């Protein structure tokens, strides 16, 4: 192949596309990000909160969007579509068509004057038509790029020139350009990533839902907007009439999903169960009254990390759940009210009726017609559900080499898996074009930093409204005026969204213009937004540590919504404290660490091997550590994927490639014993005594199968280990592989699902067992179609496309009987010593006795007992269930909070093999971000020892979790290795001599903050107010 191109086309600016673009751009590739709308953000930007963490969706997403918009190596092409692709993997020519914006993005400052004056109102699609917007508009307040757009279908002028043009008259920068025309152009890229997402199912075709006819019936996406602070009711829970507050809301699940009749979508949309539970929980939080919430469902699908616990909490908090699909939504007779009647049946067939003020249709997802057309133009195949088809064991590769896909374009999936996919697609691109890394990228150059040592503090304060998040509660103008009065403050200003691109540019401009040398932004959380503002300081030519944030949103406006006056005063306090602290800040050096270009992968299963190969194939040396004597892990016991593809040939190939790869050093029978160092420069000692130097680590240590040990778990035993015909899924797979003929003679087989999962100590779903058990049952039916198979289950978790094997199983005559936790099936021995199983049929409500020749237990996947120790070595967290905890459940699914350490596979959470592969590739891509560089930045806020005070007691050395502090052998004084220090401050707190401090975060700085808090309030409460 000729040398490949070093740039990549990403189609779609939702979370998957944005993640892919950022990962690529940060690892040495130039990215063209093509988005059909006027701004990136996709569906995630429309959501209110995200489950299971209840994070504000746009708040956690916005920093990524802004980064995308500002990234030197991302070319954002909005209002654009891909017309044609020619060429081949490594060198594609892509024709792109871009619709006119009619607003010059280089001139538009997003002041909004145009929109204010525009006389034409049209339904706002961002709010799904629940509100109005103008013909010239911003897609949403945090839009990236933050540039207005003219809707040519609505604009009066564009239809009849001369008739309006109000925007032209008010625009202060002459940005309106009615002469703008459609453009076509070509780009060359090495690979293509499709992140084209989904569209919500339109329930208007299902007349019985009442959607479009009964005003109280809304879709879940509409309800997200109703809950959202930036939505049509500003987050106030209202009925769609915009007036009354709903007292009773119902959610109807599976609208447009798992429906092969009217909706024509046999698949499960995966996300709806959890978003409905979340909406019910959040709606109850929004309501100051006692909101009655009811969810009507078929199976509650809580098959991912934290979901079952979230569901359990929702039930405890009073969300009502009914296992019942409702035929029709009907209006109350007019003389009785304007409510909506739901008639539903209990499992026993008893009919009940309830009246609701609102019914939310939990609509599924589907591929939009434009994407179907695009797939046709690109020559990538679709599957029968009309999603992009991926190879079974290469989950992000489409049918056309060099074109990859990620996220909901492939299958309905939630945000974390879309993010995983995105990184995995990046990895595939890297494997294809890694030779061209850094060949087309540009390098960020910051201006030289101004020396501010001789200057008196010139502090600038920027107070953010965060739309209405802060502005609706806190009087930001008053806070701004107050800030101006504080000592050292020479400038203060309010921003609608301080993180918007124009505001960022304005802040930089102000720093330069006013000669600011300290900056305070009073807005949200430094966790998400500090890096953005710090970079702005650098662009403006001052050291980024001359910065402080006051969190007047999460810690103020959000929690004191009912008391605006007190919230405003608290904001003033927080600003005063931040100003007091930043006054003492000094510029800190930007440390960096040379990267050891090698990786350590712990675990020799599918995840570990996939990650190791993914890195080694790019030329990064890998050390693969496996505690057992051979590679393969849990997959050695896995016969087939859920689709029915054989796993063993794949595994065999993976093992061969791994063992034979010159870039992979195998350490079999070895354990990780000691880890030191940090991102870019780790040093790890193995039990074999070998010491390994590496820049990154990937933990892929797998999981184990549940075996009842405690008395409490005795009920899950089901004669396992006591009767030879009671086996678990792994053992059955073994029998399939060893002697399938013996299985073909079975007459009756009973499967019991959820053995040990979703209860008590293991309040989580093991995710893979439903599909695996059903696949096995289908295999048995294939061996002997006359075999009677019963599956005793609680909720069938065949999410996404897996639903098709659930249907196939039923079609083959496999009988599903549902049980509850309070009436578990019972297994016993009959008079002949044969297994018999008793269960109650959920529909006929009668006891059933089964006589299986084989009883198969779908036992839980449980964390490995030693995974806790390993995670401690890498300073990684473990969740309550014992699985390893990623840095952020939504947006950083393969990163640990510890930089440079990543995770993949079952150690993270139970998952099927294709998800393990995707996650391993994603982990490799994320690790590659570091390995692709020569240096990584080190922490600047580090501990610093005052040698004159240090008494050499050594406590700091003992407590440092990073082994960064050592006592100098000679003079018995503490010394900090700046490259390793993370600035956590444990040593500072432990020092009895007050000898250690953190730069910019030491006692002086903190005390000045506290003193500022205690200062007399310039606008004190009067005695009257206080009483």
């Amino acid at each position, binding site marked *: 192949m000729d040398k490949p191109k070093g740039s990549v086309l990403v189609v779609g600016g939702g979370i998957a596309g944005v993640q892919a673009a950022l990962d690529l751009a940060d690892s040495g590739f130039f990215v063209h990000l093509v988005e059909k709308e006027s701004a990136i953000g996709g569906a995630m930007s429309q959501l209110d909160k995200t489950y299971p963490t209840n994070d504000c969706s746009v708040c956690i997403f916005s920093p990524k969007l802004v980064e995308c918009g500002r990234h030197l190596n991302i070319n954002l092409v909005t209002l654009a579509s891909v017309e044609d692709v020619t060429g081949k993997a490594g060198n594609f020519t892509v024709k792109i068509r871009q619709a006119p914006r009619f607003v010059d993005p280089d001139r538009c400052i997003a002041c909004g004057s145009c929109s204010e004056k525009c006389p034409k109102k049209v339904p706002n699609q961002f709010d799904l038509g629940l509100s109005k917007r103008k013909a010239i508009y911003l897609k949403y307040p945090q839009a990236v790029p933050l540039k207005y757009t003219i809707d040519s279908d609505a604009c009066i002028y564009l239809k009849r020139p001369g008739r309006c043009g109000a925007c032209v008259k008010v625009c202060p920068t002459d940005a309106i350009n009615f002469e703008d025309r459609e453009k076509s152009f070509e780009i060359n890229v090495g690979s293509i990533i499709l992140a084209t997402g989904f569209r919500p199912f339109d329930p208007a075709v299902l*007349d*019985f839902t009442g959607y479009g006819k009964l005003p109280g019936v809304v879709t879940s996406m509409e309800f997200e907007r109703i809950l959202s602070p930036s939505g049509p009711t500003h987050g106030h829970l209202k009925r769609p009439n915009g007036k009354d507050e709903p007292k009773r809301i119902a959610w109807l699940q599976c609208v447009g999903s798992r429906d092969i009749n009217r909706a024509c979508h046999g698949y499960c949309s995966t996300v709806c169960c959890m978003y409905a539970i979340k909406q019910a929980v959040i709606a109850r939080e929004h309501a100051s009254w006692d909101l009655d919430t009811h969810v009507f469902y078929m199976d509650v699908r809580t098959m991912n990390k934290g979901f079952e616990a979230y569901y359990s909490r929702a039930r405890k908090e009073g969300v009502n759940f009914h296992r019942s699909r409702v035929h*029709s939504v*009907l*209006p109350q*007779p007019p*003389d009785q009210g304007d409510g909506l009647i739901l008639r539903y049946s209990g499992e026993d067939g008893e009919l009940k009726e309830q009246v609701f003020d609102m019914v939310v249709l939990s609509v599924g997802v589907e591929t939009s017609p434009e994407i179907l057309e695009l797939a046709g133009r690109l020559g990538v195949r679709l599957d029968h559900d009309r999603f992009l088809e991926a190879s079974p064991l290469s989950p992000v590769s489409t049918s056309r080499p060099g074109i990859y896909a990620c996220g909901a374009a492939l299958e309905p999936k939630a945000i974390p898996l879309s993010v995983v996919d995105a990184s995995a697609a990046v990895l595939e691109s890297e494997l294809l074009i890694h030779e061209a890394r850094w060949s087309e990228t540009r390098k960020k150059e910051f201006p030289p930093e101004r020396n501010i040592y001789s200057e008196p503090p010139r502090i600038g304060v920027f107070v953010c409204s965060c739309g209405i998040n802060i502005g609706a509660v806190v009087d930001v103008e008053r806070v701004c005026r107050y800030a101006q009065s504080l000592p050292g403050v020479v400038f203060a200003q309010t921003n609608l969204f301080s993180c918007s691109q124009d505001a960022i540019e304005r802040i930089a401009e102000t720093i330069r213009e006013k000669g600011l040398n300290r900056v305070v932004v009073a807005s949200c959380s430094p966790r998400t937004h500090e890096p953005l503002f710090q970079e702005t300081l650098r662009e403006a030519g001052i050291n980024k540590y001359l910065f402080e944030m006051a969190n007047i949103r999460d810690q103020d406006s959000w929690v004191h919504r009912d008391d605006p006056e007190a919230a405003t005063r608290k904001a003033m306090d927080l600003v005063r404290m931040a100003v007091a602290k930043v006054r003492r800040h000094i510029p800190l050096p930007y440390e960096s660490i040379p990267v050891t270009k090698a990786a350590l992968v712990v675990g020799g299963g599918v995840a570990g091997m996939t990650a190791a190969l993914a890195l080694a194939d790019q030329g990064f040396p890998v050390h693969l550590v496996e505690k057992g004597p051979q590679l393969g892990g849990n997959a050695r016991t896995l016969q087939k994927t859920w689709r029915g593809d054989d796993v063993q040939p794949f595994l065999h190939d993976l093992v061969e490639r791994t063992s034979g790869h010159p870039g992979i050093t195998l350490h079999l029978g070895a354990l990780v014993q000691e880890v030191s160092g940090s991102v870019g420069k780790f040093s790890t000692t193995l039990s074999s005594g070998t010491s390994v130097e590496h820049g990154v680590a990937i933990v892929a240590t797998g999981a184990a199968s549940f075996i009842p040990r405690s008395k409490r778990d005795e009920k899950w035993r089901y004669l396992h280990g006591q009767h030879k015909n009671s086996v678990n899924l792994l053992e059955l797979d073994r029998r399939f592989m060893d002697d399938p003929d013996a299985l073909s003679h079975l007459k009756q087989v009973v499967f019991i699902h959820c053995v040990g999962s979703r209860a008590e100590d293991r309040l989580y779903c093991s995710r893979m067992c439903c599909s695996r058990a059903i696949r096995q049952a289908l295999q048995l039916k294939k061996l002997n179609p006359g075999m009677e198979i019963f599956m005793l289950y609680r909720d069938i978790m065949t999410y996404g496309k897996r639903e098709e094997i659930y249907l196939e199983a039923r079609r083959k005559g496999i009988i599903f009987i549902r049980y509850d936790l309070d009436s578990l099936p019972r297994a016993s021995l009959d008079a002949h010593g044969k297994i018999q199983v008793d269960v109650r049929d959920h529909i006929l409500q009668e006891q059933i006795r089964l006589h299986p020749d084989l009883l198969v237990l779908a036992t839980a996947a449980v964390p490995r007992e030693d995974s806790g120790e390993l995670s401690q070595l890498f300073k990684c967290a473990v969740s309550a269930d014992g699985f390893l905890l990623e840095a952020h459940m939504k947006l950083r699914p393969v990163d640990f909070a510890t930089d440079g350490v990543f995770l993949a596979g079952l150690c993270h959470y139970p998952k099927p093999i294709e998800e393990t592969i995707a996650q391993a590739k994603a982990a490799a891509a994320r690790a590659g971000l570091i390995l692709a560089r020569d240096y990584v930045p080190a922490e600047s806020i580090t501990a610093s020892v005052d040698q004159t005070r240090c008494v050499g007691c050594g406590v700091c050395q003992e407590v440092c979790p990073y082994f960064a502090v050592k006592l100098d052998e000679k003079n018995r004084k503490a010394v900090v290795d700046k490259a390793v220090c993370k600035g956590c401050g444990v040593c500072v707190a432990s020092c009895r001599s007050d000898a250690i401090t953190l730069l910019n975060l030491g006692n002086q700085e903190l005390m000045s903050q506290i003193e500022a808090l205690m200062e007399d309030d310039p606008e004190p409460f009067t005695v009257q107010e206080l009483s």
Partner: protein
Amino acid sequence: MYFAVLEGLRRFKIPHKFEFISIISLYAQWIRDGRLKVSSAWNVQGLKFTVQDPCKLVRQGLGDTVADDLRFVIKQVAGEDNFIEVWPNRSNNYCCGGGGGALQAGFKENRRRHGKAKFDQLAATGADVVITPCHNCHTQVKDICSHYQGNWETTHLWNWIEKALVMEDRSREGKNG
């Protein structure tokens, strides 16, 4: 019965030369074409109408199109504002409980229990007249009305079309002759 013929022709592949149509579709077409002139002027007291969408004609037959035609005709005949929608309706309507041979099968109590859903939804409209374009529906709706003590009149559509006929040509003829 519309469905019996429609589905019978289809399922048993019975050869035929004619085109099979519903009188309801024709009424609507004739009114739209001006061949059938009707006026709601007769309805001075504002009698309220609702409708029973027959399963066999609508859900199993011609779908919402014929249900819309039915409403169009009633509104032309009784006055736009004198039609009260019933819920559920059209293709999603409840069966009256008299179809499927239930009227002949003889399980009277069961049949009336079945018809309770129909009675409740019709009663909720408060209409004075229930149009039943199917004979089974007509008999059953009439029966449940009296059994559950409703106070509407159960009738065919043609009686009201007759009432609403505008006889222009005929009156001219009368004058001339």
